[in-house]
């Protein structure tokens, strides 16, 4: 699994130039270096900065990761989808057009 440094503001992004032209793209000032698992067809620097989940480190409730550590299982509690990775529980959600995972308190 490669960790990709997504270091450029617009290049990875479909029609970034159009966006920039349309005033929709992030300005250079808020472009940030983010570790990303996937690239949008669109500028993304405005998305929250998220990182791949570190393995073997304590994960703070409320933190957000773009990908899960290995060996997780999909669990439904009530009507809600979770990913349980050892003692850490994640709730998937769509952030823009990508799924990210929020660390939550164990639901059971």
């Amino acid at each position, binding site marked *: 699994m490669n960790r990709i*440094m997504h270091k450029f503001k617009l290049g990875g992004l479909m029609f970034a130039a159009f966006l920039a032209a349309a005033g929709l793209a992030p300005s250079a000032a808020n472009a940030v270096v983010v570790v990303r698992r996937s690239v949008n067809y669109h500028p993304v620097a405005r998305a929250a900065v998220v990182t791949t989940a570190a393995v073997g480190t304590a994960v703070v409730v409320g933190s957000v990761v773009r990908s899960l550590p290995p060996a997780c299982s999909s669990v439904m509690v009530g009507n809600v989808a979770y990913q349980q990775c050892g003692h850490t529980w994640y709730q998937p959600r*769509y952030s823009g057009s990508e799924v990210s995972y929020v660390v939550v308190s164990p639901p059971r």
Partner: protein
Amino acid sequence: MRSSLVAVALAAGLTLGASSWSNAEAKPTSAKPAVDPDAIAALQKMGAFLREQQKFSVRASVTTDDLLASGQKVQFGGTIELMVRRPDRLRADVRGDRRDERIYYDGKTFTMFGEKVGYYASFPAPATLAELKDVTEKRYGIDLPLADLFYWGTEHDGSSDITAATKVGVSTIEGTACDHYAFRQKDVDWELWIEQGPHALPRKMVITTTSEKSRPQHGMVLDWDLNPKLADDLFTFVPPAQAHKIEFDTAAGRSASSHQ
């Protein structure tokens, strides 16, 4: 003696050559501004033509440079299939090395579905595509694929950001004769190949990020169908049995959570 004559002749020839070159170059550059109005007009004509289309499908073959942590540039690929029926239907399938999304919009509900992860999320959608775009971008941080191509020639096109625009020449893209244009703006150089004749379709595009040392590029070749058969059920999401519903993080929610 002979050799010095040759040298003189060569020098004269070179001088003549150089001066004719500089003349040839000087004329157009002095006559034309950096932003050639004809190149901007071509963008606007393309935008107007795209907005005229009541239904279409387009398949984009996309390549994207990215950087490994070492700084080495690598290329990823994928496809986008976009199907649109105005005023209230849109479907997009995005597949790639690192992408997997389906977007469904049927005038009532907007759904994003990731087939590989098996998650989908929906929200009640506004009644038209024009309104939808605003909601997806501002509230949910979702950019509809290729949407920005359709701006040119409207007040949102931002053509004032373009610092240089010129026609490079003529080029054939997948068998279609195109005019090749090059544009510059802050941090970005971009090129566009627009079909010649009455169907002013974008056939190819390359974006180069000039503010990065590695100058990563993003490119696509576009294959259009202006008379597709688009049945209603293409646009309505029916969740597969194994798919789980999750929620969208709204833009406000996202920025709040990143500060926790």
